[in-house]
């Protein structure tokens, strides 16, 4: 059972609050990755406030719970905000993001014991392997909960992703739902310019995965797609959800450009962004 199980109207309000947190966090330290964080906000809010079964009383082994792994760790702001808003730790701690002695490291880590995080990520391409291992152990432990993992689209340029993709299909790891954030952007430009990905649907299908596609910035399509992905588990194949998002979604001047991948807004830009991210019951930390 999801501990929140919000309505779509409520999810929209939470997503706006998370987006406010993201722009404020990266602005405060003039560093971090707002673009991908904003684009994936609706996915995170869907998982933690509707789709996943978990307890906010964090246990590393996650026994009897759905697990989530973030492979593209640079979008940590959206994860930190979502975890705080979901009740894993005090939202006030978001103010420590990227600062000395913080549990909210630039990229997610377990070293400081932040609730909700089970593995470090940042060096790309490792999360699918980790999630697959965790999923196989769930089977071994007769734990029928699911494992979710998010990757970036540029990230699949890493070879380890394909090692894991081959393995998961070969070993019939069918309790995993992987998602690729297809925003078409990476640091040096669009994925088309930097390293064209071709058809990820065709590639993952050829690797033996069940592949679904969805819009990632629209709860009305995203929630049913995640439910459909759950329905596809347990059928002998790992499940891939290709999620089309817009980098920077929710802040008009950040949308659709790789320029906001790893750049923080200045004071003026922050004010404009916050005006665009209005929340019914704002509770900025």
């Amino acid at each position, binding site marked *: 059972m999801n501990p929140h199980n919000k309505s779509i109207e409520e999810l929209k309000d939470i997503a706006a609050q998370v987006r406010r947190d993201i722009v404020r966090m990266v602005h405060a330290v003039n560093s971090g990755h707002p673009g991908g964080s904003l684009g994936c906000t609706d996915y995170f809010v869907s998982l933690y406030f509707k789709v996943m079964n978990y307890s906010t009383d964090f246990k*590393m*082994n*996650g*026994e009897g719970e759905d*697990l989530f*792994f973030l492979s593209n760790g640079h979008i940590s702001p959206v994860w930190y905000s979502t975890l705080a808003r979901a009740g894993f730790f005090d939202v006030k701690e978001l103010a420590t993001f990227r600062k000395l002695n913080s549990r909210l490291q630039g990229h997610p*880590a*377990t*070293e400081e014991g932040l609730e909700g995080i*089970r*593995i*470090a*990520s*940042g*060096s790309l*391409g*490792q*999360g*699918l*392997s*980790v*999630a*697959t*291992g*965790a*999923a*196989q*152990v*769930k089977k*071994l*432990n007769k*734990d029928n909960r699911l494992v979710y993992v998010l990757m970036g689209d540029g990230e699949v340029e890493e*070879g*380890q992703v394909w*090692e*894991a993709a*081959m*393995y998961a299909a*070969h*070993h019939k790891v069918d309790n995993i739902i992987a998602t690729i954030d297809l925003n078409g952007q990476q640091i040096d430009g669009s994925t088309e310019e930097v390293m064209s990905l071709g058809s990820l649907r065709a590639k993952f299908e050829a690797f033996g995965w069940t592949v679904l596609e969805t819009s990632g910035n629209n709860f009305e399509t995203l929630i049913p797609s995640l439910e459909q992905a759950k329905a596809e588990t347990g059928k002998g194949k790992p499940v891939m959800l290709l999620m089309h998002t817009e980098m920077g979604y929710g802040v008009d001047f950040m949308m659709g450009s790789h320029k906001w991948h790893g750049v923080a807004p200045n004071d003026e830009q922050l004010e404009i962004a916050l005006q665009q991210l209005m929340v019914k019951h704002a509770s900025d930390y």
Partner: protein
Amino acid sequence: MKDFPFTEKKDTRSGFGAGLLELGRTNPNVVGLCADLTGSLKMDAFQKEFPERFFQVGIAEANMIGLAAGMTIGGKIPFTGTFANFSTGRVYDQIRQSVAYSGKNVKICASHAGLTLGEDGATHQILEDLGMMRMLPHMTVINPCDYNQTKAATIAIADHEGPVYLRFGRPVIPNFTPADQKFEIGKALMLNEGTDVSIFATGHLVWKAILAGHILAEKGINAEIINIHTIKPLDAEAILKSVAKTGCAVTAEEHNRFGGLGDAVAQVLIANTPVPQEYVAVNDTFGESGTPDQLMEKYGLTENDIVAAAERAISRKSK
């Protein structure tokens, strides 16, 4: 100089295989992963008896390390198996982020380390692995000396919470340590008490140190020989106690002279009791094809090299 009788020669990798099989029978949380080298790593007996707890990964070592890290989350104790080269250099970043930094209870088990891999040549003869693994925070680094000790170490690391690098090899060498030994991580083992020079040896060089001890005894030199099976955490107390008595040190390892046992011991000595130290190690070069014995001779890792190093160390002692 004490005698170390043995009844047979065996490979340390078989000690790993035997230890893993025993763990399979005694610890239900132990799982094995292998990257297409099940026979070479002697993991086939475990695979056969516990097929549901064995995961064939194929030739994909990076994925293997990530899988193992993920498997710890549900309480399993993964033992990964491949050659030392592919267990470290090839997957350093995966070990660094997903295992060491994340504090995961993964046992990285590495065979065919060093020159004694033999004819396959330098691409497979890693001589830098101890250094790489030593540099990682949280990592325990173990290099046992014979079959019995490798088996005991394999069993012991399952009870140690945290990442471990366990290094062993291919050649058959004298199996001289007791079959019923209890392996204590981080505890150096005194093999022969002496007064003139301390020889700190690890892995395959432990037996060579014993051979060197006999040669030195014939020359009237009384060598203290200590088996450093755990390179990290290093038993600094045992090292300092020994050099307080002997006044000089030799380190012996099947590894590059940079980053391995020699440097680990040197760090302890310079911070506490600076005494002359001589390295028996590969002199910052790659290996090549050849038989293990030929290679150990060419690259300076024989008992005679230890003897010469001991004599140099003794000659450097302040009179």
